[in-house]
């Protein structure tokens, strides 16, 4: 076991300061400091508020992760950090911190893709990833279907949202229903007491759309439809059945997500589906995906909810895979890239290897 790499991962792409430590395929700790409460009064994530919170939380979260795992920083074999995509100013805090760890400890640093990390996290939950795996990543910033032959090196985007991310739709519909931010957990809770009786639209599922946008998603029209439905009720002076609207909206989102994900598995000949991202914490999505995968003979993998939302463990997990597979470290001059494409799984070094070893030789 001890020859497996001990990697610390840092995640600061949005409003969670995450620090996780992984040894090979074993999760040791997943420490999180969230600024979500600070954003709630703004009704959404404010980038500058998130960045300030990351700076304050960075070192304390590293300390807490090490203390909880019983790991000394000097034991680490490598550092991994989310270098994109995400909020630029927020990413920079994590990237700079990771490089400082790399310099201070004389260990390699890997700048890695946030979406790839959401896939790799399941390795510490359910063991090695079947190759290939189909991944459905759904969060406040992303809704993507990815074919993943090798999570450290080869990720192929099949489709993504053409407008709002699924999580964004949850936030906006929550606002329409007078539920707090972030919308996901509140809609999930409200929907438990609701009846699925409003037939909201399923975006990009019509015959023509299925030709042009076979694996793509659209949630903007759904959000507008919910908003209009609620306004019509209010204009008529009637009460809005919040639970029913929440349940019906949630059903429309999860129906399209699971339908297209399973279609992709079947058409691409992939026997495993993994769901990740914050929306994967949604109980209806998890249940519906399980039912439909069982029926289709597809193996479903979904990490526990705490590992679906943004966290440092997922970054550490991908970093550990990078080290185990002998991928080249990123060096010290890689940028934070707010629009990093998912095909860039990690930052390849631009020049010759960095000066780490020379520094520690003295």
């Amino acid at each position, binding site marked *: 076991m001890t020859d497996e790499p001990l990697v610390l991962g840092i995640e600061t792409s949005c409003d969670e300061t995450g620090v996780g430590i992984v040894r090979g395929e074993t999760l040791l700790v997943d420490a999180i400091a969230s600024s979500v409460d600070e954003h709630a009064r703004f009704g959404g994530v404010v980038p500058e508020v998130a960045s300030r919170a990351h700076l304050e939380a960075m070192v304390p979260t590293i300390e807490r992760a090490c203390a909880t795992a019983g790991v000394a920083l000097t034991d680490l074999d490598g550092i991994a950090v989310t270098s994109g995509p995400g909020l630029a100013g927020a990413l920079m805090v994590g990237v700079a911190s990771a490089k400082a760890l790399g*310099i201070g400890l004389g260990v390699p640093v890997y700048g890695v893709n946030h979406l790839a990390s959401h896939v790799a996290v399941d390795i510490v939950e359910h063991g090695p990833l079947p190759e290939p795996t189909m991944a459905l990543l759904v969060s406040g910033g992303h809704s993507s279907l990815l074919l993943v032959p090798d999570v450290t090196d080869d990720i192929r985007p099949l489709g993504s949202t053409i407008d709002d991310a699924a999580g964004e739709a949850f936030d906006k519909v929550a606002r329409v229903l007078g539920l707090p931010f972030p919308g996901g957990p509140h809609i999930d809770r409200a929907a438990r007491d609701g009846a699925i009786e409003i037939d909201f639209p399923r975006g990009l599922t019509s015959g023509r759309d299925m030709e042009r946008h076979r694996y793509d998603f659209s949630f903007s029209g759904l959000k507008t439809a919910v908003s209009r439905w609620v306004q019509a009720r209010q204009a008529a002076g009637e009460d809005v059945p919040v639970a029913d609207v929440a349940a019906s909206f949630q059903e429309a989102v999860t129906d399209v997500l699971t339908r297209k994900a399973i279609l992709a598995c079947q058409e691409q000949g992939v026997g495993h589906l993994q769901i990740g991202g914050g929306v994967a914490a949604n109980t209806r999505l998890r249940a519906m995906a399980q039912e439909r995968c069982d029926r289709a003979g597809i193996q479903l993998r979904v990490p526990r909810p705490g590992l679906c939302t943004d966290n440092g463990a997922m970054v550490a997990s991908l970093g550990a895979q990078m080290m185990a597979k002998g991928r080249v470290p990123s060096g010290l001059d890689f940028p934070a890239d707010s629009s990093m494409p998912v095909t860039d799984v990690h930052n390849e070094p631009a020049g010759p290897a960095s000066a780490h070893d020379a520094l520690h030789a003295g």
Partner: protein
Amino acid sequence: MLMLALDTSTSAITVAVHDGETVLGDHTVLDARRHTELLAPGITTALAAAGVAVTDLTDIAVGVGPGPFTGLRVGLVTALTLGHTRGIAVHGVCSLDALAQGAGIEGDFLVATDARRKEVYWARYRGESGVPTRLSEPVVGRAADIPAEVRALPVVGRGALLYPEALPDGGEPLDVYAGDVALVAQRALEAGEALPVEPMYLRRPDALTTAERQAAVERA
């Protein structure tokens, strides 16, 4: 003492290694947009130039601003993380104080740096025997709104370069040099002053709370 000093509050990404007597090695690059890429390599370059291993460092000093936020934070989180990693103290220095130190001006003068959005960060100083003393707390505002008698003083920092009509007596240095961050930190430490690492933002985040937005709608 082997102090690593750095600052990212102005257009310079600047790093120096100082032994308490002199700068042993340094590295400065002007690029106001690429702190994330350039600071870490700058640190390894400065250490190599000084012939110092990172494990030999005893202290870190960092400019806490005021300065544009994203770049400033890169310097701060780098200093804090490196300090934690090596188990050494991290000292925060007002970046305008470091610029004042570099000015070498006797008598009253002004430090004014680029705050973007047509504003400057500024503070008034008095130099005596090579030691500048800050006479006012750093503030952010338009150069033209600084009191006339202050605007007439000699100015260091990019403020005068950007707003020559408001600040006519501009001079160098334009940007912070990390060697001066080290000097200011060491002088304060000798005087027993605490040097907390608290960013000087001087501006609130640009955002309205849901309640503020609602109030604005109702006013309109």
